[in-house]
């Protein structure tokens, strides 16, 4: 896969300098922008167009902390999609909360509605606590990682480095579950049916 950090000529770190990133983006776009290749032959023009669109995608990835972290992890061979070791307790929490939401939607009497809304409020609070705990740990892991230099390939990482990135990948996937559940809870609290679109 393409190393976007490399393409943009910046260090492969969790934190990036956004001004520098933006500057690099304009430089790269200037080189490949389709308008610069109007007079070129068709093959070259198509190439420039594809390049330009790749740069846009890479920029979108690098600009936002979460996609950027996911990209970094993927480069090291830790794609979030392969984080199968999700704690069953977390999945159960999601399942139970979603069932509460379904109950709330089905409830017709006032008392049940009130009780469910109250319980959902507690769920929302718990979610918020867990999410901030994850974000705090993520921030610390990112900071610690960025402090030192690391090999570019997973095979050359030390055992603690592997553990470091493995934990990061795990946290990001756990966060995804909490996030999706959070949307559903919020929608339920606002009396809307959750229509999940990722």
């Amino acid at each position, binding site marked *: 896969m393409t190393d976007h950090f490399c393409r943009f000529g910046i260090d492969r770190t969790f934190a990036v300098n956004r001004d520098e990133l933006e500057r690099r983006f304009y430089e790269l776009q200037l080189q490949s922008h389709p308008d610069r290749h109007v007079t070129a032959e068709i093959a070259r023009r198509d190439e420039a167009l594809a390049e330009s669109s790749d740069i846009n995608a890479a920029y979108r990835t690098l600009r936002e902390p979460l996609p950027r972290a996911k990209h970094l992890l993927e480069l090291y061979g830790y794609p979030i999609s392969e984080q199968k070791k999700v704690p069953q307790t977390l999945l159960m929490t999601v399942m139970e909360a979603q069932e509460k939401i379904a109950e709330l939607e089905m409830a017709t009497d006032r008392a049940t509605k009130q009780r469910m809304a109250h319980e959902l409020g507690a769920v929302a609070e718990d979610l918020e606590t867990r999410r901030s705990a994850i974000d705090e740990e993520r921030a610390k892991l990112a900071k610690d990682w960025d402090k030192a230099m690391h090999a570019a390939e997973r095979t050359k990482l030390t055992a603690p480095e592997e553990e470091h990135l493995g934990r990061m990948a795990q946290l990001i996937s756990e966060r995804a579950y909490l996030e999706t559940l959070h949307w559903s809870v919020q929608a339920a609290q606002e009396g809307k049916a959750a229509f*999940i679109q990722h």
Partner: protein
Amino acid sequence: MAYSEKVIEHYQHPRNVGTMDPTDVNVGTGLVGAPECGDVMRLQLRINPDSGVIEDAKFKTFGCGSAIASSSLATEMIKGKTVDEAYAIKNTVIVKELNLPPVKIHCSVLAEDAIKAAIEDFKKKRETAGLAAVAVAA
């Protein structure tokens, strides 16, 4: 994102939504999640211990339309199959049937994982209960 007609159809009329008693020794429960988007799927199978045939399947999925459609289709596909046949089902069959776009392929993987997890749960439960393994050749 545009969903295929089949996805919309399953999303609006999901088959076999529900729950079974997870403590029933003939019921296997698979609870799996999609780590990228946080969708969660629970699939339960009622398996005939003598024939190894899946007699009933129920699911509950919390996630996007494709995840719901994938699990709904999976329950339809595995009913009447033996555990071995069901275990061998690949996500690509679901992708094809529902016409899932590349970004939604992980939803079909989730369904495949759920089938496998449910069957493994069933087998483990029987083992723990000291019951004979369901021996069926696919």
